[in-house]
């Protein structure tokens, strides 16, 4: 029983991290139908800014975190301006290649500027401590991250569902042209989307590196792909879907190792198998309606 509860705790930690990052993915994808490959690298950038903020500029951790989120947001918005906006009317393949290019560039600039060697991420003691309940032990983050994820989920849902900008976002996601006929500045709406998405990436990057306290230039690669899978599982474009997808993926990954340790080497393959099955048989994801565009 202890083992099972421990595994539940493990699942919650991993699942809520996936969920947090997946929400950012799904925001951006939902509006402009672009797999923002650079999203994964924004995690890395946020982690490094927080890292340098704390260690080099000796900022208190909360300032370092805020700074990291702000700068990551700025970077995310600039990426959209420079690399995606000029391609707004181009084939989707071009934008996708551009996204891959940006991701490639961020990683390699980080390697050149910071170096390829990983660095330990300083965990603020106020946020991270060990909790022991009977035989189960976990970090305070196991509680903190789901709470943050949930708060952000509510916040993002509120923005998208209740505010004027949110309605405009959904309108833009459907139809650029008609939106602009309604006096909606499409560029501004998309920028706002990237503000939210990148800020979420910032938070995600910081949470990720507190949980797995190590930063390196390629650290975004795996969470990036996993969280995209989570977003697809939940129904890409659906914000509660991303949350559910994140948790489901996290739980599945932990449980496959827990119950079938012999197959633990196939853990990543398993995530991809789920992805492909979902794409093929339920492209709307767990929550979404079947909205894959027809020709």
């Amino acid at each position, binding site marked *: 029983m202890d083992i099972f509860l421990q595994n539940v705790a493990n699942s919650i930690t991993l699942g809520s991290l996936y969920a947090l990052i997946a929400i950012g993915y799904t925001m951006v994808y939902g509006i402009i139908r672009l797999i923002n490959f650079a999203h994964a690298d924004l995690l890395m950038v946020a982690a490094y800014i927080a890292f340098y903020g704390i260690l080099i500029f000796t900022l208190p951790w909360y300032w370092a975190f805020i700074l990291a989120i702000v700068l990551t947001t700025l970077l995310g918005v600039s990426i959209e301006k420079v690399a995606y906006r000029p391609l707004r009317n181009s084939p989707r393949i071009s934008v996708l290649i551009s996204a891959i290019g940006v991701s490639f560039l961020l990683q390699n600039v980080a390697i050149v500027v910071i170096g390829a060697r990983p660095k330990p991420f300083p965990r603020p003691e106020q946020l991270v401590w060990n909790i022991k309940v009977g035989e189960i032990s976990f970090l305070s983050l196991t509680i903190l991250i789901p709470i943050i994820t949930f708060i952000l989920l509510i916040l993002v849902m509120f923005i998208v569902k209740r505010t*004027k900008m949110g*309605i*405009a976002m*959904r*309108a833009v*996601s*459907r*139809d650029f*042209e*008609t*939106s*602009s*006929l*309604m*006096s*909606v*500045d499409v560029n501004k709406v998309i920028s706002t989307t990237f503000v939210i998405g990148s800020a979420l990436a910032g938070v995600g990057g910081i949470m990720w590196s507190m949980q797995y306290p190590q930063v390196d230039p390629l650290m975004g690669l795996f969470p990036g792909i996993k969280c995209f899978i989570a977003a697809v599982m939940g129904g890409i474009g659906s914000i509660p879907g991303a949350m559910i997808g994140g948790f489901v993926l996290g739980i599945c990954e932990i449980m496959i190792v827990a119950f079938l340790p012999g197959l633990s080497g196939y853990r990543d393959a398993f995530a991809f198998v789920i992805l492909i099955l979902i794409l093929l048989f339920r492209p709307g994801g767990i929550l979404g309606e079947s909205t894959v565009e027809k020709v």
Partner: protein
Amino acid sequence: MLKIEDLQVYYGGIHALKGINLEVPENKIVTLVGANGAGKSTTLRAVCNIVPTASGRVFFDGENITGKSTVDITRKGITLVPEGRRIFANLTVHENLLMGAFARNDKQEIQNDIHKIFERFPRLKEREKQIAGTLSGGEQQMLAIGRAIMSRPRLLMMDEPSLGLAPLLVKEVFKIIRDINDQGMTILLIEQNATAALKIADYGYVMETGHIVLEGPGRELAEKEEVKLAYLGKS
């Protein structure tokens, strides 16, 4: 109110508009009729700068608005009900109407206007919280018109509002157009259904492959032999 001078548009290599001159006086219904592909939609889209103009000028209230961004143009009081309705299928009826009022900030007035629209289209009221994609064609057309009105435009441009609707609904749509006009809104209407359009229009233009070939008051135009022959399907 709207004045178009020698408007030319290219689509890639295709010369779609070959110099259009057109005028829409205040408080009138002006219609632009012509066969499929004559360039009617292109004219409207060029006014809103959705397609770029190669040459020519567009004046609105005497102000040159050629080349201004779509958002700027619509904020000046021009609204287009696009062909095929183009409602936001993923938004509720209510949200669609709110989108129409996007440029406005007067919350109370917006509520009043929504109320008025529901009075005019009771069917929409019933479906207020419903996702717009689930509406029938006719309801969608009502919604598209309602959404356009929500921006309180001074000039309402409509692209084929009767397309794909049952005859009974077509009639209703034209009645609504009349009504709106009666309340003081200027309308530029595009129709393939030339009979009905010319019947309600104060003035009409006939287009053919990028040119305006005929113009005149609506009823007069409807009587002309060549118009009848070409567009009114006289057998």
